[in-house]
């Protein structure tokens, strides 16, 4: 972004990569797949790079409002400093925090989840998608809480899957009634409380009941949890967990 600024240019959209997308090995693949699609669609975009910092979502949901607001204000200062208007992110937690909680702190931007953004590219004809290797494959979609219930977006990722001509099979708990993967509310960063089972294993079992070959999702944390769930069920050979953006990029062999 600093380079754009130096050249006096404004990108069409800022890609907010997020901590997982920057550091988590699995999530970095999603980041790269999404960037490939942005390039393919000739989107003029920028990232903040080393100037990006955690949105504060896990701090806020853990109860640390101080740390959250400090992160938020620092990020808002950077974003406003660059005059950012439009942001796209591949993380529903960043999407929710920036979209819902930053405006009151002085940061108002048009924010889109990457599945919404990709859908708009398809609708505008900037990107074309064909089923490719996913055509007819049985796929289930796991709704990330902070995309679905928290912000009411259930259709954009499903629309993309339809474009891939997959056979979309729904889990019993889906959309509004979808079950959490177990990572939200800062659970990602702590051990779960004592219980009968881990949440991600329960959710993976629900996904596997559909006998889908791929569990698609749109969140790097759901990705970790579901991937671990599949491993816990020793089903890595039969079931894959993929981000919708990765599927689109893979279908095209980008």
């Amino acid at each position, binding site marked *: 972004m600093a380079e754009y600024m130096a050249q006096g240019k404004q990108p069409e959209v800022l890609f907010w990569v997020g901590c997982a997308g920057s550091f988590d090995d699995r999530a970095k693949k999603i980041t*790269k797949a999404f960037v490939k699609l942005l390039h393919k669609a000739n989107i003029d975009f920028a990232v903040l*790079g080393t100037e*990006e910092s955690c949105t504060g979502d896990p701090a806020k949901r853990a109860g*640390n409002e101080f740390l959250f607001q400090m992160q938020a204000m*620092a990020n808002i*200062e950077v974003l406003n400093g660059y005059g950012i208007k439009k942001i796209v992110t591949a993380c529903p937690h960043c999407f929710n925090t920036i979209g*819902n909680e930053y405006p009151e702190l002085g940061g108002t931007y048009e924010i889109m989840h990457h599945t919404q953004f990709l859908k708009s590219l398809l609708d505008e004809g900037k990107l074309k998608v064909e089923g490719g290797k996913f055509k007819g494959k049985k796929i289930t979609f796991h709704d990330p809480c902070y995309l679905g219930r928290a912000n009411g977006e259930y259709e954009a990722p499903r629309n993309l899957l339809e474009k891939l001509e997959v056979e979309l099979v729904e889990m019993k708990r889906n959309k509004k009634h979808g079950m959490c993967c177990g990572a939200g509310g800062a659970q990602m*960063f702590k051990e*779960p409380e004592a219980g009968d089972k881990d949440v991600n294993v329960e959710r993976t079992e629900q996904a596997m009941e559909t006998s889908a070959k791929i569990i698609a999702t749109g969140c790097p944390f759901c990705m970790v949890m579901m991937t671990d769930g599949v491993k816990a069920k020793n089903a890595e050979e039969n079931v894959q967990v993929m981000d919708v953006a990765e599927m689109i990029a893979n279908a095209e062999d980008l």
Partner: protein
Amino acid sequence: MQYLPNILFSIALAAGIGYFTLNIRKIIRNIKLGQEVNASDNKGQRWSNMVRIALGQSKMVVRPIPGLLHIFVYVGFVIINIEVLEIIIDGIFGTHRVLSTILPEGLYNFLIGSFEILALLVLVGVILFWTRRNIQKLKRFWNPEMKGWPKNDGNFILYFEMVLMVLFLTMNAADQSLQSLGAAHYVEAGSFPISKFIVPLIDGFSEGTLFAIERGAWWLHILGILIFLNYLYFSKHLHILLAFPNVYFGKVTPKGKFKNLESVTNEVKMMMDPNVDPFAAPAEGTQEAPSKFGASDVMDLSRIQLLNAYTCTECGRCTSECPANITGKKLSPRKIMMDTRDRLEEIGKNIDKNGEFKPDGKQLLDDYITREELWACTTCNACVEACPVSIDPLSIIMDMRQYLVMEQSAAPTELNVAMTNIENNGAPWPYNQMDRLNWKNEN
């Protein structure tokens, strides 16, 4: 002496309504112990939510079977109250079926006929509800927090409603027999599509016996209603009244939007403003720093959250959707609401006794809701979505987490590590912020 029944009735009515009013005022007083909140925004949205969700039961029917049964009971309850109006006028003035003398015959017959059909539907609904609780033993009615009083409370309400409906139909059956005998006062009025099937059972009884049955059922029915009205205050059944304001005051922003603490915003702004003199004395008239961040007791919660607690009817839909509860953790969103109400009522009784609240060495945190429950929440909003009357257990969990973290620094160790990382290197993991763009050159 002939006015004795009228006088007795009026006394019973006044006592019933008076005691109820007294208790409702206690509820309002207790709710006002909470923090004031401004909910004057989005009026249109709020009214439409109330019409759709409370009046229209839109979220009840998400689960079709209990949803439909609940609509029977709900519609029955609302419509049959027209009959209660007649009973009250008859009781005070010593008339009999007064509306039949005012309304056109066809309309009156239609009303009484529909009350009877609804009464039957209520009876069916309530009996099936009872079987779901006690025979089918649905899991959500057998969670640990449902032991003892909450379980009995649920059944008492169902017995009450069964008895009231049976009394209503019995009264009508005896009335019909008296009408056909041409008994004094019993003018021919009403159509009785359901209770006519009870008539054969009391056929051949003397006029005196029928009169006793009719009067007995009439009195028990109306006294039962007054008792039930006053039972509400002690029970989970307050939702029949509070669901409406509660839905009105429910959340109107996206579920993912958690409120930003204003007191914190001011502090952070000060910290980040280079022009602030850190040693300056606070300006005259500025508000004092808030005494506390987050919530450890019910007084720290908002009035809407306390209204939520009184509104909860312990149906357990939230708990049955909670990922933590499904996987056997201690957290149950329903218990969060029940605990909040229990603690609030404890404080209310303390005030009744002492005139004002005398600290009792207890609080909502630890004495009612444990830390283990609070930390098991994934903030997924499933409980909020599931609630048919817009209760928000998640907001209470969040406020209590804020107290734990900001007042007590009592977060689980791993979370403290993650938060330190965020503070130091801008990510919950211990990576260098300068490496944020490395993915660009990796393959």
